[in-house]
């Protein structure tokens, strides 16, 4: 019987997720990272990607995240995300349009934004779209 721990995803807009879970896989700075109860204390930067959560009742849930920070402790795991969505909040068509817009901005260059910022925004949009499309199937 795997032990459970508290897992929270908070964005500036709202709390996306807050439940007791048994395992979490998150897109950390150097690659995907699995966390279970009793994990050594860790602070990590996140990159755009998806979080896979296994809740206490054995169900699997997915959350798309566009970067942020993770604070992992033995009994609690907190993610401060720049933005995060659950599958039912994402619309593939909207995600595709956002990606096109981000790509156009990268190609033409937008005033007041650096090259890295634009590249990061394309990356985020791609991540959302991938997530949204996979969920539809």
């Amino acid at each position, binding site marked *: 019987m795997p032990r459970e721990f508290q897992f929270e995803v*908070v964005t*500036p807009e709202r*709390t996306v997720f807050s439940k007791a879970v048994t395992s979490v896989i998150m897109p950390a700075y150097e690659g995907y990272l699995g966390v279970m109860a009793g994990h050594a204390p860790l602070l*990590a*930067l996140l990159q755009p990607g998806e979080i896979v959560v296994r809740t206490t009742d054995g169900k699997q849930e997915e959350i798309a995240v566009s970067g942020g920070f993770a604070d992992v402790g033995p009994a609690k795991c907190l993610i401060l995300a*720049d933005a995060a969505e659950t599958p039912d909040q994402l619309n593939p068509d909207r995600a595709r349009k956002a990606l096109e817009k981000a790509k156009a901005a990268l190609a033409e260059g937008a005033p007041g934004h650096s090259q890295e910022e634009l590249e990061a925004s394309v990356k985020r949009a791609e991540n959302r779209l991938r997530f949204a499309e996979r969920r539809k199937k």
Partner: protein
Amino acid sequence: MAVGNIKTIRTKIRSVNNIKKITRAMEMVSAAKLRKVQERLMAVRPYASKIAEFLTGLAGRVQNLDFPLFKTRDNVKRIGVVLVMGEKGLCGSFNSNMLRFFNEFQKKHPQPVDLTAIGKKTVDTAKKVPLTPVDSYVALKPDVTFGEIQSWTNKLIASFVEGRVDEVWVLYTEYMNAVTFRPRAVKFLPVQTEKKEGAKKEASSDYEFEPEPAKILATLIPRYVQTTFHRLLLESMSSEHAARMNAMHNATENAKDLVSSLTLIYNKARQASITKELLDIVGGAEALKG
């Protein structure tokens, strides 16, 4: 004479009624706006407090805090002040309280000020003080975009890092609930980490970082600064709408009282004139009889 009097009272009642309608409408509008801003505020608050916790924890664990935004300067020659006031008037003492607070703040911090004015009322007030704002932003919306916040904080950070100012303070009105809010001043830069000493004691060597702490901090600090700034703006906006809602509610109540007392006077005057007319008629009839 009496007829004229009645007429003026009647127009008065009508105009007070119109005022009542307007203030009532303004109250409703403010209530709706307040609800919208408050929602955002309540959503930002947990994130802001968590990110502050995060920063404090991390700052305590990094041995040499080598970030310019953390460095306290001993000799404060010039301070940056961000003064946040409302967009409009008609909100009770909201704006005047803030101005009084600002004057008191200046007594405590006599250094020359680089003012950043936020809100149309701040810009107007600055002209009277008189101070020329370095920057001013008006027409705040409840859904300020992240990009806007970023460009404002970037400017504040730049003036701090480049040494134009040695401290940055934000003067805003903290929102407690729909009837209580009070002006507050917070030291915005250098970044304050609470209980830094305590956190340092428990600086555990078994904490892992991915990537190294300095790199995390470099991403975290701007994020923290922006979130804090965003929260302060939302606090002020919520307070403004709440203040206006209260002021307009009181105005509506006053208008109601005024209408009822005017109606009483009107009825008395009308009755008096009728009685007088009757007396005239009766008196005339009596005279004809005789």
